[in-house]
């Protein structure tokens, strides 16, 4: 059975030896984050900090719970979905794509059936500071919640829209939300609610079940419900429960829910923050204010957080892993639905929000340009600068194969295509623009524009294999018999067996 809550997921990790509870007192003030970063860098187990110093509640902190093993980042998430252990990356993608192609509508449950309502606080009982929001990097602008699902209204879906935006805590009831125009929820605020002078109801859901957490990062088109895709992923409905103070529905098994609203024409400082680029970046800027109206939570809530910046290069963290294991399959589904003959779309594992690799056939001249144009204009292109296209036969989860394709097949003269010179928007989190270029635009994008590019690293002809697949498979089996680690050999998995 797929897991139904963060707790079940942590229990699953515990059974596989990938969880490390710490009962020693640990501070939210950098200590939990530092210990988590060590694990992220060293590919260690997921830390759970059971005893947080200096807080009133019995909360626990969980450091980057969705980080996968560096060799097979999808492994933990696959187990959470009740898929077999040890799948190759390509097989994992196939299975998840099958699930995403069969969305399952959520079901609603009554408040008394929802674990996230074990404690309900409203009015004067609301106190954000009673929870151990971590101070993640020295130099951050403040304490953050950065591993959560934002639920916002969407007139086109019954269940609202889900996304993920970091949140800096200011006091007992207020936080600033990083809303960057160009994405669905920020656009709803900046171009709908705020011009009308209306507060936008929002729920910040912390410690959701794995499939919920993963869909918040997907590019689900408007009019489609993330909740249904989360249900598809787990092959069962996601339980939702109505908020106490607004009409939004939130995942019932969540650890903690902050109900509130984003005020119009009100701003608080946000940042700087060591973000997903792996660098501390600024400047501190003004961002919309989230005011908390109610807090509901489970007993002894587990509060996950992400040490952003540790998911670049070899390191992995929750967000880099979720991008690979969930956003990638989702993007593949989306591109196929748009009519493109795409084998796989995969984030580049060393910088998962800057570069994507797409393995695809080229059925007609100009196809790659059309594909690039489609994704540049329909995806969250504030973040992504590059797409690399490789042959459908190339495994985009294998960085060596991708690097080889770029080196041998991408002709600087003909295969590097820029979409205009500095005509496109960019998040100010990047590090290649100067502070002056980033500026402090009202809606959060950089003042200066940037360029987008795609690289055609597909071959122009047939490639010849010197060894048959069957011989390769037999060779791998022989090497495993000789003592080499079986996990290193993808061709031993069922996908290859099926192709024989």
């Amino acid at each position, binding site marked *: 059975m797929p897991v139904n809550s963060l707790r079940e997921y942590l229990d699953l990790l515990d059974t596989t030896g990938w969880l490390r509870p710490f009962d020693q007192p640990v501070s939210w003030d*950098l200590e939990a984050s530092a210990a988590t970063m*060590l694990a992220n*860098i060293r590919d260690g*187990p997921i830390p759970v900090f059971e005893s947080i110093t200096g807080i009133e509640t019995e909360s626990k902190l969980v450091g980057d719970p969705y980080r996968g093993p560096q060799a097979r980042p999808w492994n933990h998430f696959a187990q959470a979905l009740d898929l077999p252990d040890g799948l190759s990356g390509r097989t994992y993608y196939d299975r998840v794509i099958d699930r995403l192609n069969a969305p399952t509508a959520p079901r609603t449950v009554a408040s008394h059936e929802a674990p996230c309502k074990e404690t309900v606080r409203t009015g004067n009982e609301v106190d954000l500071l009673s929870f151990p929001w971590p101070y993640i990097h020295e130099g951050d602008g403040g304490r953050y919640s950065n591993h959560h699902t934002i639920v916002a209204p969407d007139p086109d879906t019954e269940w609202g829209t889900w996304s993920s935006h970091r949140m800096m805590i200011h006091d007992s009831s207020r936080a600033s939300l990083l809303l960057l125009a160009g994405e669905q929820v920020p656009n709803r605020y900046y171009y709908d609610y705020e011009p009308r002078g209306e507060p936008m109801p929002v729920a910040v859901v912390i410690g959701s079940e794995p499939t919920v957490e993963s869909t918040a990062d997907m590019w689900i088109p408007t009019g489609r419900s993330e909740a249904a895709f989360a249900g598809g992923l787990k092959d069962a409905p996601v339980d939702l429960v109505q908020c106490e103070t607004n009409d939004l529905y939130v995942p019932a098994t969540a650890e903690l829910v902050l109900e509130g609203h984003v005020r119009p024409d009100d701003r608080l400082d946000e940042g700087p923050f060591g973000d997903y680029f792996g660098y501390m970046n600024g400047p501190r800027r003004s961002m919309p204010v989230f005011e908390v109206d109610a807090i509901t939570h489970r007993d002894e809530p587990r509060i996950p957080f992400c040490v952003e910046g540790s998911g670049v290069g070899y390191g992995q963290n929750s967000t880099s892993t979720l991008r690979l294991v969930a956003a990638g399959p989702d993007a593949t589904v989306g591109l196929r639905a748009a009519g493109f003959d795409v084998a796989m779309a995969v984030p580049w594992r060393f910088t998962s929000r800057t570069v994507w690799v797409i393995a695809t056939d080229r059925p007609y001249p100009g196809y790659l340009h059309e594909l690039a144009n489609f994704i540049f204009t329909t995806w969250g292109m504030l973040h992504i600068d590059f797409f690399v296209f490789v042959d459908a036969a190339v495994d985009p989860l294998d960085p060596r*194969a991708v690097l*080889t394709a770029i080196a041998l097949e991408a002709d*600087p003269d003909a295969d590097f295509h820029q979409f205009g010179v500095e005509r496109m928007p960019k998040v100010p989190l990047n590090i290649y623009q100067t502070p002056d270029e980033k500026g402090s635009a009202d809606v959060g994008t950089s003042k200066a524009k940037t360029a987008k590019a795609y690289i055609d690293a597909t071959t122009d002809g047939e490639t010849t294999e010197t060894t048959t697949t069957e011989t390769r498979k037999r060779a791998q089996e*022989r090497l495993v018999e000789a003592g080499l680690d079986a996990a290193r050999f993808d061709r031993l998995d069922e996908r290859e067996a099926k192709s024989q």
Partner: protein
Amino acid sequence: MIPFTQYVRGLAGDDDLVRLDGPFEIPVDALAAEALRASGPALRFQRSTGTDLVSGVFSGPDQTQHREARPWSRLSLGLGLDPEAALVDLLETIGDLGPAGENPEPTYTGQAASGTDIELQDLQFPQGETETWPAVTLGVASVSTADGTHWAPVHGSVVGGDTLRVRVPDALSSLVAAGTTMAIALGVPPAAITTAYVLAVTGQTATPIQSCGVTGTVPLVPTNGGLVPSATEAVIETTVADRQPDFRSDRREGWEHVVASGPLSLSVESVRTTENPVIPISPVGCPLADDLQLTGLATAATLYDRLNNYWGISPVEWVMLPAEAELGICFVASDILYGGFEWQLANILFSFSSLFDTVVIVDEDVPPQDFGRVLADFWLKSHPARDWMFSEPDAPAATRPHYRRDNETGSRLYVNAAWDPRWKETYIAPRVTFENSFPSSVRDVARVLWNESDIAPGVMTENESPH
């Protein structure tokens, strides 16, 4: 100097070599290729004939995954360095093997390959699944001229009981005529084969080894061809039968992408081996193959030396032509001395090597063993419009990539993924690292937490230390 068999024993002693017992129904080169793809250990193929083969001894793990060993760890061991040696130490050591300012004093000792003369087929070279003939790889050809002995890498096929068809650099072909004696040494000390590669990739095959650093470190022995290392596992003495045979091989060793090469047909005169010879093989054409790694390191050593002897100072930290990119991209880490220096740096590299036409420049503090960071900075620090610089489309095509094989000119590209030296210090975003993001007292707390754990994550990494 470390003899080849001692080197192989060293790899086994480091648990970096696995023995496989014959017979081998699966082609040996297929086994070798799969082990390389999997970043596995070196392999020793034990055969009842008494002649063992080894693969992967000059290669190493795929750097696109986080690993403790480096792709250059094995060769470092083979050249007398610590396996943990820094890349630049290895590059400098490789550079010292090549042409020297003075003639080192050679040492002559007895030939280890002094067994009874055997037939060429007795060595049972591996034959690929789609190959017509057994393949000879990772050989060193040795010929003698009035100037001295000349070494070059050689590979080819056993096409009969006494016939080899091989490819050697044109520079070596030009030194021989029909009837010239050529020795082919297999299983030479790592320093010797590395020297042959250095001479080839620098176009200095015509320079006699008596003028190279290797002569001072590798004991030699005369053969009917030229001098070969005394501690050679197998010496095949041949005469040149045909300087222009009709022989084409689809498989090219890495060095053949650097220099022009051509075929020779050789008549085998004698084959002598040690008592239980161990012969290295490379699955030519497969990812991370030994010949590719040797070519990449030899080329990087040459470029590193040239760059740091160009400006009067040594701004370049390291140069790498990773086998993971099949030698088609050059990565360089350097102090960017002034605005525009990156343009100079890239174009000097293009001048000194025709292998690639893409150069990626990263900051000097990026360690070569943290290739994951290189592959992140590549995209993160380069502005997609301003830092991807394409030349006019008038450059000849590089020799390694597959495109533009029609002699058409095209563009070269350099990616500047280093900070602009003209930027104010306040513009430079600090990296998120364990060292930068937490005060020392907090780092100590974190380390203690894990050190007290019975399942502590692994060893300290580069990302945890300042550079």
